[in-house]
């Protein structure tokens, strides 16, 4: 339209008319009705229990049907059985078996030109008569498409809503788990416990795109040469019948064996000794096999061959459609993919404690882990972590005589924890991956280096000092605890940017150190107890303050590592910095104030001192409040959660140059359009050419401005449950033990401290982008047990 207007093909009136008619279109309801469905979950379960003195069992069967908003349909069947055997008073065995089967079918709509969340609103999927219509115009300029169709004799039309009909898929999952535990009393106070678990999960799935599918047709055209004579047949280098058949098979086997001895005995009713020592073995193996076949016929289960080596190296010259910037098209396909991952762990652990006269306690623990994980030296794994602690129960002292407190216990622990360098991320050896490519056929297996060696890596270690008090009031109406902790982590492990002169852009390294200090408080209260009425509540409050003490940077700090990064030495982790935005200039470009009070417009004028600290994206104060109210047969409970004191970036529009191919936030309308607008708006002007835009301004001065950093605090009513329990006399007649009806509402209300309708829980606070929100949902259930 704009081209036609510009070239004088149509006049302004016609153009306006056409723009208005497009403006009147909105595919929202078509997307909603054709690409989505209301989410609906049903769950049925039945449990049974029985047994004797020596043998008891508990079993359940369940069926779930889940239809989610993206039109996936899933059925799940579950069978659980737990059996307990008592051989004699000192030997017990339990055995739990879980079997599960799951089958799902996805709604597959491929090659949609754009994300459904910001799809062009005027690109309609159906016409007025509810026929599915073509969107080929979003794929390719029409004369090119017709030319390509003519040369290849393959249709390149694209009707999105017809596409799901051209695909088939199915995915099934079978899982089995056996868990056995053996407990033996060996001597007075000494117990042996053994636990063994074996688990296997098998996942099988396929997706099939038949030859009407756009994906199949489009790829074919790229590997087709036009016929040399008008009546001739084009040369197809890929099968021109049959579709793409993708299969995927994964197999997971995991087992755990734990053997431990526990000891707990009190001597002379004064000395209580307890101890625990054990070993644990863990193994997990996962295997994956994927195939990709072209030219596959679903019905006859046959396929056509094509020359993979030739297509990967010499490719197709003079194809009907060229890949951008290439004179010949090559195809890099992986017809088969295999992957296997096996991890094994061995742990040794123990702890011991001693309490004198129930007043003075001392305890200590130690743990050591080893793994087969790669690129680490086994010797480097023998690094135990330990802790020691002491406690004093003041309320048990003879001299303790308080009218207020019934319980008062003081605790103090100190410990050293450690983290080995994460295997696979870095270690004393370079890790290589096998990667073959067609160009090197005949020269041996190819290898690429996945992670570089770094033998300077040392363990990350954390020292924790924790002090606490548990208290209970005489009236038993109030109890709770208060903990204070101070945690210092040194040699933090993580990825760090590197000087490319080394050959790497980032590497796993010891980054620096960090200190965390905080308070945790819990209060349980019984507010009211009357004959038919009771009200209890639990209140929790936590406060955390942290600071990055040291961050080893191999290069100087830049403004961008402050604004885009989250870790800056001397500040808290997840700090948010912004530009000191002062408004738009008379061309609609953003301006900011630098640290030395100059006005800056360009990226090259910025220094690391310019960004201003505005807070952290992690809440400083957080916790919850649960209330449970009972009145006769009714019961009501609700949970409030709160997160306070943190900040986030606003979800401003970030599209200010380039081609408009998506739907953008409505804030785009507020942008600067004509001189004088700078007095009314802060939103920068749109400049079509990306590089012209970049060379005259830096839009982030606005998008990452401190004026766009707002409070992320919120309080949410997480859930509200209402239950009615039927009276026993009613139940007796129905031979039921209990019967209740309940209704639960989740994600009900939110009070967020911002004016932009942002729910900080479903939001990327650092980048200022919304994420898919979990809507309020309701559950209604019946619960009953028969006699």
């Amino acid at each position: 339209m704009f081209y036609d207007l510009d070239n004088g093909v149509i006049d302004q009136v016609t153009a306006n008319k056409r723009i208005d008619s497009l403006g009147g279109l909105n595919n929202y309801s078509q997307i909603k009705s054709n690409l989505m469905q209301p989410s609906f979950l049903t769950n049925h379960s039945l449990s049974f229990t029985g047994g004797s003195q020596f043998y008891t069992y508990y079993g359940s069967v369940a069926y779930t049907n889940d239809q989610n908003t993206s039109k996936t349909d899933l059925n799940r069947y579950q069978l659980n059985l737990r059996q307990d055997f008592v051989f004699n008073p000192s030997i017990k065995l339990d055995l739990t078996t879980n079997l599960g089967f799951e089958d799902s079918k996805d709604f597959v709509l491929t090659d949609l030109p754009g994300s459904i969340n910001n799809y062009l609103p005027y690109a309609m999927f159906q016409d007025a008569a509810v026929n599915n219509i073509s969107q080929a115009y979003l794929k390719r300029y029409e004369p090119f498409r017709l030319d390509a169709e003519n040369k290849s004799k393959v249709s390149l039309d694209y009707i999105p809503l017809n596409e799901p009909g051209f695909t088939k898929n199915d995915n099934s999952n079978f899982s089995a788990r056996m868990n056995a535990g053996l407990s033996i009393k060996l001597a007075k106070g000494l117990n042996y416990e053994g636990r063994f678990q074996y688990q296997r999960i098998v996942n099988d799935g396929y997706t099939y795109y038949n030859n009407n599918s756009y994906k199949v047709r489009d790829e074919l055209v790229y590997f087709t040469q036009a016929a040399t004579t008008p009546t001739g047949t084009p040369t197809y280098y890929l099968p021109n019948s049959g579709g793409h058949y993708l299969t995927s098979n994964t197999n997971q086997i995991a087992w755990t064996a734990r053997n431990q001895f526990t000891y707990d005995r009190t001597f002379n009713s004064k000395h209580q000794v307890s101890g625990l020592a054990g070993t644990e073995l863990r193994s997990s193996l996962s295997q994956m096999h994927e195939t990709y076949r072209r030219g596959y016929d679903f019905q006859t289960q046959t396929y056509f061959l094509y020359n993979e080596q030739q297509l990967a190296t010499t490719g197709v010259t003079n194809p009907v459609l060229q890949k951008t910037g290439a004179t010949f098209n090559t195809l890099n396909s992986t017809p088969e993919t295999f992957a296997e991952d096996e991890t094994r762990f061995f742990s040794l652990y123990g702890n011991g404690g001693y309490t004198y006269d129930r007043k003075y306690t001392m305890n200590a623990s130690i743990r050591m882990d080893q793994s087969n994980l790669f690129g680490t030296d086994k010797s480097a794994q023998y690094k135990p972590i330990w802790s020691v602690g002491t406690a004093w129960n003041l309320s048990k002292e003879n001299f303790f005589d308080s009218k207020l407190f019934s319980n008062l216990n003081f605790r103090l622990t100190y410990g050293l924890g450690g983290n080995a360098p994460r295997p696979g991320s870095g270690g004393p050896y370079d890790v290589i991956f096998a990667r073959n490519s067609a160009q090197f056929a005949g020269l041996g297996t190819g290898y690429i280096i996945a992670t570089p060696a770094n033998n300077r890596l040392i363990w990350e270690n954390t020292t924790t000092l924790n002090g606490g008090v548990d208290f209970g009031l005489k009236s038993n109406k109030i109890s709770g605890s208060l903990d204070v902790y101070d945690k210092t982590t040194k040699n933090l492990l993580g990825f760090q940017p590197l000087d490319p002169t080394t050959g790497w852009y980032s590497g796993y390294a010891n980054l620096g150190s960090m200190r965390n200090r905080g308070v945790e408080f819990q209060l349980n209260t019984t507010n009211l107890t009357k004959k038919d009425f009771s009200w209890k509540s639990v209140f929790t409050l936590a406060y955390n303050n942290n600071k990055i003490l040291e961050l080893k940077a191999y290069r100087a700090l830049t403004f961008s590592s402050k604004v885009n990064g989250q870790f800056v030495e001397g500040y808290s982790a997840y700090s948010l910095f912004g530009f000191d935005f002062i408004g738009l200039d008379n061309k609609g470009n953003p301006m900011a104030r630098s640290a030395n009070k100059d006005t800056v417009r360009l990226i090259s004028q910025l220094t690391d001192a310019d960004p201003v600290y505005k807070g952290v994206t992690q809440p400083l104060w957080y916790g919850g409040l649960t209330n449970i109210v009972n009145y006769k047969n009714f019961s009501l409970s609700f949970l409030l959660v709160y997160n306070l004191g943190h900040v986030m970036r606003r979800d401003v529009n970030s599209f200010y140059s380039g081609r408009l191919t998506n739907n953008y936030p409505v804030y785009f309308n507020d942008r600067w359009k004509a001189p004088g607008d700078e007095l009314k708006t802060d939103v920068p002007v749109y400049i079509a050419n990306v590089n012209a835009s970049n060379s005259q301004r830096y839009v982030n001065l606005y998008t990452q401005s401190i004026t766009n950093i707002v409070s992320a605090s919120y309080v949410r009513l997480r859930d509200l449950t209402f239950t009615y329990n039927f009276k026993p006399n009613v139940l007796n007649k129905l031979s039921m033990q209990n019967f209740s009806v309940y209704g639960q509402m989740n994600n009900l209300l939110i009070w967020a401290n911002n004016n932009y309708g942002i729910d900080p829980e479903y939001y990327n606070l650092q980048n200022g982008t919304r994420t898919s929100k979990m809507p309020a949902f309701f559950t209604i259930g019946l619960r009953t047990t028969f006699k």
Partner: protein
Amino acid sequence: MKRFGFYFLFVLILTYILVGCDKFLDVKPKGKDIPRTIDHYNGLFNNNNLVSLGNFRSLPSGATAILGNADLPLYMSDDIYSSSAYLTTNTMSQQNAFRWLDNVFLPDEDPNDWGAFYVQNYIYNLIANDVMDAEDGTPETKKQLQAEARANRAYMHFFVLNYFGIPYNAATASTYAGVPIVTQADVGQTNFTRATVKEVYDFVIAELTESIPQLSAQTISRLRLSQAGGYFMLGQVYFQMGDYANALTALKNCQNNLSNTAVPFALYNYNTTMNSWYSPSAPWRGASGHPNMFNSTENIYVKQMPLTSVIQRNCLYVKQNILNLFASDDLRLRFFYNKNQQNGTITLPGTQRNSPTAVNWGSSLPNLYLMLAECKARTNDLTGAKQDVETLRKMRMPAASATVPSLSQNDFIKFILNERQREFAGTGMRWFDMRRLANDATFNNLDGKHQLDADTYTLRPERLTLKIPPKILAYNPAMKDNQ
């Protein structure tokens, strides 16, 4: 007694677990490994990313992210011009390089033109330093792989020096800073210092000279280095330094080794091949049938520079005075056209090189013949020189036009320099000739003007050398920048 039996059993289990533990943890994951065997070290060369002068980063998942190519010479060569309607779609550093500005790289940019060489250098260092400790393989094989790695490492240093070190001049080479010499595969290295231009050249020549005898005598692939390729590199280095006598010796050695090969070496005769490469009905596609660099029989060892991003953007056009150098029946003209390559629908402000979509900056026959010719001409072997130039020209145009007229030594050298401009127009290889000829009193043919619509940008001698990228200076605060 019953109790005792239990204890005994548990002690037995526990002992078994502790003893079996080492075996239990000794399972190796599939698909990945640490470099141990000769196959591993050999396989490290079989890496697609080493074929281009590309900048890439490997991810722990085993995937590779391609960051770009060391392609600024395409923009800084003096045989091209541009138009802002198209150039503005390029990255800022490409635009700045075209304008020959002092500050080319953005403050936060990971510079491809620095990274490409050092990223590949890491892999070559790892092989060079560790292959001798491989658990298997004969000493000969180990030495051969080590030589291949050392020669390539030297080659990487040669390239990066020709971006960031001043053009070689025997008088000043030992006073001006070149680039860091990195011979360890160690990510913990910091505070790199720039060796002088002379030190880098000395390192490159010494490494190549020591390595060449150990390289495979036979060329087994255009992607693996043989003695022929090694001698080419050495010749190219001397040639770049203006040491034509030494260059000649090395290049002759290259030529003599060409016959020992498993892959065919031959110049394409455009008089016949162009018929199948070029379609008169779609001239905007150029010689689209030209084989790719891995298969082209003209290539000895491939280090390719993709032109795709230039062709895609339609942003660089060969200057008219360069096009005027071509005889009208020169078949190389088929590589140039003034419409967009995709479908010929846009008429461009100039004539762009549209095919093939990558060019080989490594060892190739055309460059071999042209370097041989120039070395011979400069050492006054005009007959030899004439023969070499004509060998190439006969393959590029009808025989009648291919003959070189009798010329004086100086005019003949100028003719060969023009032949280089014809053969390599719009490939970025001119950048290296610009640097080589900048200090040549007689043959300096630099054309230091870049036209961007109505604006003219002038090349100052300092900008034959890029300044060190700001990000590299940030990592190495003590490092000195260029003028």
